[in-house]
């Protein structure tokens, strides 16, 4: 997930994949070993900058509180349930493939926001960061494919669930396209709440 820029989704995804791929290649062949000790510090610093930008984006959507009021506070149950389902589901999946609970839980707490969750977790270990990145990219991809079917066969509100934090941006057109304007508003609110929960729940789960 990302927010702010007016670029098309495909352009941005291509840029993101290219950045990670060129980083991996640089790490494999070019990056001098004596600089490795500074990576953690650079990640910390960049993370603070990213969170600051996310804050600005959220602050610019001032009417979000009014939107929540108009829908009734019960709709906050949707992001809460998605958060619980995502973390518990990831822990259950991690149990099958033999991942420790704190790692699988933290990866699930990315809620599809692959850039932020992966960057937070790459501070913990490069491997967990990598799994978080690919898992949450997969989540966004599977979500975009599954949303029309879930909206048709299960329910409108349920179609927000796979999108997670991306329900406010990349997955929003997919959801509003197959549901209605009220569901689109719920989707946006859900995405904002889940996005706020990512920098809280990911470090919390990994510290368990």
């Amino acid at each position: 997930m990302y927010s702010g820029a007016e670029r098309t989704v495909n352009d941005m995804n291509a840029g993101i994949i290219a950045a990670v791929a060129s980083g991996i290649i640089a790490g494999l062949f070019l990056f001098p070993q004596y600089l490795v000790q500074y990576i953690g510090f650079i990640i910390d610093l960049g993370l603070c900058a990213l969170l600051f930008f996310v804050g600005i984006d959220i602050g610019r959507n001032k009417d979000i509180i009014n939107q929540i009021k108009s829908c009734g506070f019960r709709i906050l149950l949707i992001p809460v349930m998605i958060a619980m389902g995502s973390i518990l589901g990831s822990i259950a999946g991690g149990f099958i493939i033999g991942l420790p609970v704190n790692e699988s839980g933290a990866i699930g707490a990315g809620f599809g926001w692959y850039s932020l969750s992966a960057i937070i977790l790459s501070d913990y270990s490069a491997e967990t960061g990598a799994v978080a990145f690919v898992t949450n990219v997969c989540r966004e991809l599977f979500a975009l494919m599954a949303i029309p079917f879930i909206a048709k066969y299960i329910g409108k509100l349920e179609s927000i669930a796979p999108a997670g934090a991306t329900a406010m941006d990349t997955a929003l057109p997919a959801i509003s396209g197959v549901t209605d304007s009220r569901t689109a508003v719920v989707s946006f609110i859900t995405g904002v709440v889940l996005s706020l929960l990512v920098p809280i729940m990911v470090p919390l789960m990994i510290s368990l």
Partner: protein
Amino acid sequence: MIELRILLYIAIIFIGAWIGAAGKLSGKFTDKLSKLQYVSLLFMLFVMGINIGVNDDVINGFYKLGLQAIVLSVFSIAFSIIAVRLVSGFVQRSRKDSK
């Protein structure tokens, strides 16, 4: 230590939100900001890539990693759909009431 870190993250988001909500940012500035945001995101992902590239364990386990990612994402999605299903009737009722 971890609590401090989370508090720091929340504080940074709130400072950003406060500046964003003050609404004194001009259109030109926010355009520049979103470009800066995108570039810094790409830079962070590049650094994350380096972190992966210099780590032999990750590179050697790339196939395993893909499998893990598919299992974790599918389970996350399935459980969150079930979780929403549990409350959707209750939430829908309130949406009709408020009409």
